[in-house]
């Protein structure tokens, strides 16, 4: 019990949910995606380690992964979730389009999950796109997200619902004004 409480406190400390966003701002999942998918929206790409055999994920699977419900890959590797700092547009996009939650809801979800043992590992928080890239490069079971412009060959892009970021109908797109 004590270990679980400690783990939750660590998660809170590491994720550092900002008070301003925790102040009951509503999740924007109710907003229509088409309203944000303007011509200036940049695709948000889901990336994994190059040694990971996975190539394609459904949006539902992605949601389970990002909510910690799925803890291992098919090859038995533990899934390590990589997130950006709270408040970053990319994180907001994932919260809105994948998790369907706001920061408070996500925080509560992980605290609850870690407390009950349903979630084994809290997400790793990286400050920069380069940090995300390097982390995923070093950890075979890591999964994270990056803007398409931050991609390089050290990591692998995963199709979502069989769509690549450049494909028509790709849902994950990040806008600089997202969530604000």
């Amino acid at each position, binding site marked *: 019990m004590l270990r679980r409480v400690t783990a939750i406190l*660590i998660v809170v400390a*590491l994720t550092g949910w900002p008070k301003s966003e925790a102040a009951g701002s509503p999740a924007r999942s109710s907003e229509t995606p088409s309203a944000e998918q303007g011509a200036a929206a940049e695709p948000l790409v889901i990336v994994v380690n190059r040694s990971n055999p996975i190539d394609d994920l459904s949006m539902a699977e992605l949601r389970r992964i990002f909510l910690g419900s799925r803890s291992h890959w098919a090859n038995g590797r*533990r899934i*390590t979730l*990589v997130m950006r700092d709270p408040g970053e547009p990319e994180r907001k996009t994932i919260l809105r389009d994948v998790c369907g939650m706001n920061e408070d809801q996500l925080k509560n979800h992980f605290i609850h999950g870690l407390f009950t043992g349903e979630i084994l*590992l809290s997400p*790793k*928080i*990286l*400050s*920069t796109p380069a*940090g995300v890239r*390097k*982390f995923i490069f*070093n*950890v*075979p*079971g*890591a999964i994270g997200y990056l803007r398409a412009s931050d991609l390089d060959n050290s990591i692998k892009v995963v199709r979502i619902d069989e769509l690549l970021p450049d494909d028509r109908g790709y849902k994950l797109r990040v806008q600089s004004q997202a969530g604000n």
Partner: protein
Amino acid sequence: MTKRLKFAFNRRQPYLVPFLDRFLAAASRHNATVLLFLVCCGVTVIGAIVISDLKAANSEAQKAYSGSVHGLQQIGELQYETQETRRATLYALTTSDSNLQVEYADQSRNADQRVKDGIAEYGSQAKRPEESELACRLARDWNNYLGVRDEVLASILEGSTKEAVSLDLSGGVPAFERVRQDLNEVKRLYGEDAARSQANLVASARRSTWRLVGMHSFTLLISGAAVWAIERSRMLSAIQLAKLQMEFVASVSHELRTPLAVLSSAADNIADGLVVGKSALRKYGAILQHQSRSMGQLVDEILLFASTEDGTSNYKLQPLQVSTIIESIVIETEGLVSRAGFALDLQIDPNLPPVLVDVSGVSQCLYNLISNAVKYGGDNRRIALRAFTAPSGQGSGKDVRISVVDRGIGIDSSEIHRIFDPFYRSPRVNVAQIHGTGLGLSLAKRIAESMGGKISVLSELSVGSTFTLHLQIAKGEDAQTAEAPPRSAASPHS
């Protein structure tokens, strides 16, 4: 065998020694500095060889030194970078901040890339199969360690610290230990290489030392030989001079003895009362007068030579007409020429400029040349005396030349360079019993040079000789010419 060698030596010696003596005599004539010059050349060549040898040794030492430094640096860098790879990996354990952990992972990967580059460089520089094999083994062991390192890093980044430590202890430490042993092996091989280079350097230094000793000894040897040769040439010169002086003394004694004998017998006849009558007394008086004058002239010549021995000029130069000189010398030598049954042909160019001479010196000089022509004029009893101007050979100037030409026995070309040496007398004239002191030409040459002129000679054996006195032209139109005194006053002003 020994007898044969001795015989051969004895046979060769009579040829070798005179040859050496002739060579040294020639060297001493032209100056002993020739030998010194040869020694200097030899020493310079040897010095150049020694310097070249030292430079080569120095280059070898520098090469060995730079090789040592580079090798040590390479090994040091490899060791440092392997440690850095491991250190950065383990540092990632010390923090739970993913950003810092990624940074440490990055550092570790950069360091491991430098290690890979270092191993590749070592492999490319490997000279021996042993080294190539070691480079391959090191690369393999390093890759094995990197495999474990990647697992450890992944565990650390995942947050599984315990798993990371366990992996490192079970796989990382042994793998890294193998790498460390490989590096020690590299160090050992490098040490062997360095020891070999050092041994080569020591051997090279020893060779250089022996070469230096050898060359130094050789230099000493040739220097000693040169000193010996110079001393021997000096000794030969001294012997030659002494011999010439002895010959001179003998010659002078002979020259004095003839008139003395005549004087003595004439005096005896007069004392014994054998000379009776006025005419007989007059005849004896003339004989005594002539012989005593001959003796006086000989003594004068010797004294004159002795006075010019130091080479300093005591002559008073003044402008003089050539015709005056010619007239004077014709009168002076008239008796000498006619007594010997010779005829003197004068060929004097008109309008010759006055010359700058010492009156008594030029008379003495020409007297000696005419006297020589009479002595060695042979059966064709004609002597030509020519005076003319010719280019002096120095710039555009001219000089006046007075030539004494005879059709006598001539001079051998091998002797012509020696005829102006004091006391020198040709063996041919000695054989022909032509009397003389060997001072006449030497004296004439000295006098000519003292007056700023010179004497040249052209001669052909059995055809005749032409001795030419070169005289400076007096400058200045208002130069007053002096009268030529009789030759009896010919002596340097002192």
